[in-house]
């Protein structure tokens, strides 16, 4: 029982997959993040204490406008609904974040739930990104509508996903673990004509 538990990200077995042109610069590159801490945060945006508590623990501003996200060097907070946010933060250094949040939110009408095992964070980039998104979802991902800092939950293929435009114009895709195989294979298939790889 002294062994170190073996950890598997949702798409560990698809890492290194590629389709289509195999040159150095594929049309789409998919990177699955190392395991992050995913915390679903519920609460009342209108309560000043709520956003203050989030800031005091994460150092980040709670994005209260619809469809917006806040990013720092090692974390994102995605708006998911008027009382619902998703904090995705690197594991290292955030070991006490869930309990710290619970403590800071004591007295607020709020909830924090660890869902780290339930989803995986993919980062998509490359020249074919826009067209792959157009193939995958009916949402309007045109640059005039999908600006950096915007995040939407929508349908992706026949599954769902949270899609966020990051400042560096890559796109974050937050998918449920049980749907990740479908979405991984969907991306490989959709982007095959441009060349696609899932990074190791």
């Amino acid at each position, binding site marked *: 029982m002294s062994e170190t538990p073996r950890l598997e990200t949702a798409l560990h077995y698809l890492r290194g997959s590629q389709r289509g042109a195999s040159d150095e610069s594929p049309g789409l590159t998919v990177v699955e993040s190392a395991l992050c801490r995913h915390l679903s945060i519920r609460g009342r945006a209108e309560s000043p204490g709520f956003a203050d508590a989030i800031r005091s623990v994460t150092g980040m501003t709670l994005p209260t406008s619809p*469809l917006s996200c806040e990013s720092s060097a090692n974390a994102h907070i995605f708006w998911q609904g008027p009382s*619902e946010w998703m904090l995705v933060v690197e594991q290292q250094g955030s070991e006490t974040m869930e309990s710290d949040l619970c403590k800071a939110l004591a007295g607020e009408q709020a909830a924090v739930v660890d869902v780290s095992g339930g989803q995986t964070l993919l980062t998509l980039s490359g020249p074919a990104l826009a067209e792959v998104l157009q193939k995958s979802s009916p949402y309007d991902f045109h640059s005039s509508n999908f600006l950096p800092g915007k995040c939407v*939950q929508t349908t992706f293929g026949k599954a769902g996903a949270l899609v966020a435009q990051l400042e560096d114009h890559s796109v974050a895709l937050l998918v449920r673990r049980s749907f990740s195989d479908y979405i991984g294979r969907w991306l490989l298939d959709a982007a095959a004509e441009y060349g696609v790889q899932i990074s190791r």
Partner: protein
Amino acid sequence: MLQVHCPYCGELREEEEFSYGGQAHIARPEEPDSVSDKDWGSYLFFRKNPRGLHHEMWNHTAGCRRYFNVTRHTVTYEILETYPIGEQPSCKDGIHGETS
């Protein structure tokens, strides 16, 4: 394929992100146990089927998961407004000379 304005996301979104929730503004009786079988049956089963404006609930299933209300014309499928649960519709008169 309709396009529905989610009052919480603040955007028009495709119908496939939503699911239909039936007629809106049906209040649960305060004291179910003292309601007659007939009235309880009406609450459970009887719904409007107008030719014209219909106030109905939708859920932004693939988006923010919020329920909200929609005023939709059942002939043209035109959506005249969407509004949060608990609010009253502002479009109550029919368009094209029809009433709800």
